């Protein structure tokens, strides 16, 4: 952007008295950020791309040997990796759907005049302020079949939430839904409060039903902000590590982030894990792009 379009520096300000031009101030803010981004993001990203074509193992002194696309070939032919991907996809679907339903539902309930609304909203936000590892540890106790409070209240006896391979992933998703629905609720509340009241009045005059009003007025107008919540939550759910790692070690709950961690920092397959990270990165970028395109379409409507 040309400098003459920028807001002029107040000649009486301290910056001006030190002789800093608009350009200098802009650079002062931008250059450290760019440098930080290049050193800690771009450089490692490109460096690991290089490693992904080698057999490098950080735990040995052996030099990295170029092996072309072998790492990618091995990973994409490994049935366990595909299992990790399908587990992750299932987890993202359950978790994000649950968060949208619960979060949006809570926002609808709170989008009206109720006593102590501020306090209730604040209390509902508490779960997402906790640490993932702490949440994992205390839900592990809640789920415990011997003394856990969940089985006690639901009258489920010794039901094994985390030990049953078919249930464990759902159990983890429930915790994620509990923790992150407030985030969706918060964004939905912002969207709901921005819906012009006169639209509801007009619908009421036209004797439109609640369902019709919801699908024709509320949802379309909140959709763009809801999509942003979904994009954030999908990306986060896709890279979930701590919750699943703390709660269960079932093969049916081994998400890609867990497999990647084991490959990189327990097995020290540095080249192979770099390739794996790139495959995950490409997938996340692709999914996000689809969402963003859909978001733009929703906005255009």
């Amino acid at each position, binding site marked *: 952007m040309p400098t003459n379009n920028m807001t002029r520096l107040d000649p009486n300000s301290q910056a001006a008295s030190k002789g800093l031009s608009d350009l200098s101030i802009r650079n002062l803010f931008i250059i450290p950020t760019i440098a930080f981004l290049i050193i800690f993001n771009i450089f490692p990203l490109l460096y690991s791309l290089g490693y992904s074509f080698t057999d490098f*193992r*950080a*735990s*040995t*002194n052996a030099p990295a040997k170029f092996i072309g696309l072998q790492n990618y070939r091995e990973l994409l032919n490994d049935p*366990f990796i595909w299992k990790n991907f399908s587990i992750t996809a299932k987890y993202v679907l359950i978790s994000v759907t649950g968060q949208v339903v619960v979060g949006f539902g809570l926002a609808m309930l709170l989008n009206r005049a109720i006593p102590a609304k501020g306090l209730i909203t604040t209390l509902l936000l508490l779960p997402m302020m906790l640490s993932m590892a702490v949440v994992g540890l205390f839900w592990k106790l809640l789920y*415990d*079949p*011997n003394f856990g409070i969940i089985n006690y209240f639901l009258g489920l006896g*010794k039901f*094994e*939430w*985390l*030990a*049953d*391979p078919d249930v464990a992933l759902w159990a983890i998703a429930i915790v994620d839904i509990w923790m992150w629905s407030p985030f969706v609720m918060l964004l939905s509340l912002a969207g709901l409060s921005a819906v012009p009241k006169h639209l509801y009045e007009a619908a009421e005059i036209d004797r439109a039903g609640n369902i019709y009003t919801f699908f024709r007025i509320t949802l379309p107008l909140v959709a763009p902000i809801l999509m942003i919540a979904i994009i954030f939550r999908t990306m986060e759910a896709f890279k979930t590590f701590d919750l699943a790692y703390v709660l*269960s*070690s*079932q*093969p*049916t709950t081994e998400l890609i982030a867990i497999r990647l961690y*084991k490959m990189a*920092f*327990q*097995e*020290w*397959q540095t080249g192979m894990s770099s390739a794996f990270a790139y495959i995950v990165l490409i997938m996340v970028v692709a999914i996000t792009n689809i969402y963003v395109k859909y978001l733009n379409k929703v906005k255009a409507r």
Partner: protein
Amino acid sequence: MKRKMTGMLAGAAISALMATSAAAEDLVIFWAEWDPANFLQELVNEYEEETGISVTVETTPWADFQTKAFTEFNARGSAYDMIVGDSQWLGAASEGGHYVDLTDFFKENNLGEVMAPATVKYYAEYPGNSGKYWAIPAEGDAVGWSYRKDWFEDPAEMEAFKAKYGYDLAPPKTWAELTDIAEFFHRPDEDRYGIAIYTDNSYDAMVMGVENAIFSYGADLGNFETYEVDGYVNSDQAVAALENYKKLYSYTPPGWAKTFFVENNQAITEGLVAMSMNYFAFFPALLNEASNPHAANTGFFANPAGPDGDQFAALGGQGISVVKYSENQDMAMDFLEWFIKDETQKRWAELGGYTASAAVLESDEFRQATPYNEAFYQTMFKVKDFWAVPEFAELLTSANQRLYPFIVGDEGTAKETLDALASDWENTFKKYGRGQ
């Protein structure tokens, strides 16, 4: 000016403090966070009293131990002078150039004779039978069993057991007896269960548990010299052992699907099970009334024999190595000279450490010092270990991926599981050019 002066003085004071602390901490030993590390700190405090050289035992939780140690190695960091590393690390740490070669030290001090043979073989030597040594056996350990003496000695239980199985209820001598006893005491309606075994499929937890069965059934994981695995890890004996381990899982308490040493000790302290598998290093806590209300009624036994009389146990424990990147290697070697002395090893055992010194282990004083020392002594002469090759973690991952779905998820058969594991391991060895 005054502010500037104050700042400079503060800076100088901090620098002086830092310099003092650096000088006071002469040697750092890195280990996992558990009781033996506290005992080692007590021991090395005595070294400081003798020599004036302070030694700090720095610890980290078990879950991070391998990752943190190798991250430091990979960075060629000098934060640790010595490390009490797992036996499986020998290949990775020696081939990676992270450990100092202790072969000469080993031979000069005749440690091959001084230390129990199994500890020399598994904690110190790599490759197997090469005569190259990278660690001094420090903390001997293996998997043993604790049990509820009061349940076993209850006359009504003894009578009912004899009527059902035709022999006396006593600590099991075979895996068949172990399974019978687990079945006998498994009474979910009374909130009482048969047995606690390792089922956590991270790192080596469940694999160590399964190894106890496989080794005692007379099978091996493979040929450690030729890297052949087909016909070893999937032999008929190994298949029978895995089937038995899975059977034991059906006698565990509810939710027993991610359990390791903490949960297995809890199974005893909470009065849940009749028998519990665990490393000997965790048994002191079971004799402490403060941590175990059933301490007076807790007994111990060695891993039982298999159907053909073979009796082995999975090896735990660690050796102490000097880190190649340490700036205090000479001091570290002096410390090791002190550590291997008979009187130091005796003191180590008195403090609660599991010495690997053959003389101390064989002494009546050691064997009678605690109710589990005799079982430990017997076990340390019949232990076997996992692969110690640099790619051991990949082998563990394959084992976890194959064994867990069979044991906990009830998928496939034992034969299919072990055939698939043999194939995975063959591919891994092929990838790294071993045995070709």
